[in-house]
């Protein structure tokens, strides 16, 4: 990762990524489409090995985009806990299917083949969907999302609300940091607090933060009014952000390829049952 750190990095919504990442050859619309398509594909696939392959491809995309993989550590508990939870629900609640065959025991609970297969399918989907979702937010900033929406001619009020929402999440965290620093400056010692006191304190943080948001909403709406913006359209205006992006032939080909891929997967799934779990290698292992 040293090589990555030596380059000029840019902060996205979730991670750090080089300004010259190869992913930025693609227009934000193409990246948004990738996010949407990859958010659907695993749902049509019931072969765990294919979903795992899909997840591996997404990991390759992380590497291709030169995302600092250390930023993904926060998701490790999510990935592990989701797996444990998924398998436990299928183990403890296998259902009363007469075709279920016992394959082992876990603390006096019989484990059956079909529920475990279903757990493999469900978890592989969750894993693939989780990674593809993280990938989008690790490689895109609010500005990219706005550029994609504005290119798609989404109404100003929608793109503005979405952009401000994403930005306000960051402002909210900054305000929280300021409030905590102010408390520490007044001598509050977090380490000396009991767990229940900490929980109570965290709940109470929401009060000053909402007060700040309230004041900010007045300031922003006044600023918009002064600049001549209105909710119900304020005429055509020059868009600086869009001038920074070009929708090239590569983007057109990529978008067509992504849409075709989804159509093909849906077609083969429902016409030839190509992605059903019947021929999955996991089934052979469980037998």
């Amino acid at each position: 990762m040293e090589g990555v750190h030596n380059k000029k990095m840019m902060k996205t919504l979730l991670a750090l990524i080089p300004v010259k990442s190869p992913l930025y050859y693609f227009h934000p619309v193409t990246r948004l489409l990738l996010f949407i398509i990859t958010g659907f594909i695993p749902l049509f696939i019931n072969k765990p090995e294919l979903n795992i392959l899909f997840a591996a491809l997404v990991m390759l995309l992380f590497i291709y985009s030169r995302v600092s993989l250390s930023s993904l550590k926060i998701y490790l508990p999510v990935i592990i806990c989701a797996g444990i939870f998924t398998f436990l629900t299928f183990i403890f609640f296998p259902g009363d299917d007469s075709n279920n065959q016992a394959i082992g025991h876990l603390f006096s609970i019989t484990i059956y083949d079909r529920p475990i297969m279903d757990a493999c399918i469900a978890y592989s989907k969750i894993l693939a969907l989780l990674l593809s979702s993280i990938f989008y937010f690790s490689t895109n900033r609010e500005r990219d999302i706005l550029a994609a929406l504005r290119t798609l001619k989404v109404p100003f009020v929608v793109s503005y609300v979405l952009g401000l929402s994403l930005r306000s999440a960051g402002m909210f965290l900054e305000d929280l940091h300021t409030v905590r620093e102010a408390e520490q400056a007044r001598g509050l010692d977090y380490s000396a607090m009991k767990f229940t006191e900490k929980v109570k304190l965290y709940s109470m943080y929401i009060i000053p933060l909402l007060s700040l948001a309230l004041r900010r909403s007045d300031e922003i709406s006044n600023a918009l009014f002064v600049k001549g913006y209105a909710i119900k359209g304020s005429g055509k205006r020059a868009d600086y952000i869009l001038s920074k992006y070009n929708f090239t032939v590569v983007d057109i080909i990529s978008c067509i390829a992504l849409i075709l891929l989804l159509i093909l997967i849906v077609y083969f799934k429902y016409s030839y049952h190509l992605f059903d779990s019947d021929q999955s290698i996991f089934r052979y292992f469980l037998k």
Partner: protein
Amino acid sequence: MTTKTVTNVWKLNEGEIRIPQTNHVIMMALFIGIGVVVGTFGSLAVPVGFVSAFWPGQAIQSVGCIWFGMWGGIASIVFPMISNAIAGSASIAVSLAYVPGNFLQGMMAGWAFRLFKCDPRLKGGKDWAVFTVFGVIICNAIGAGWGVMVLRMFGLISPSSTLTVFLGWAIGNAVPSFILGAILLKFVSPLILKSKSFCKKYWA
């Protein structure tokens, strides 16, 4: 001896005209941001896959709909989609399927407070009862019911675990939503009621 006067915060004053303004849209956007942070924190704090077992974001939904009416309802739809995507707790397809559940989960409290003329500052027993029943119990039951149905539809939970997942989801979400919701209503409502963003009707 002091006498307690009951004020109806939802009643329009004489000559008062309320129309949706830029301020409502901005407050909704900021509220979505707050919901994104609270929702993402909840999803990352207790990560159990696509199932929601401790999600304080529900309090934001209920309280938002009480204060900001339909603007809170829109926020109730949008912020879970963003926080689910950031926390990796649901894909875009699953989040889209959650939309009606999230809307009802939020609007139930907003509707009940307006219908029963309750005070958002939780000043009396009626206010507490309506918040607990509609803003915590019923809305979480609806949200959990819808959520479990969606997960069943996508094959992400076992059919026989439906009731257990439903109960875990509803009860697990009800606890933080009651605590955070009560704190918000009790302490922040006095500020909100004085602001331009407060909606006496559904849109203004």
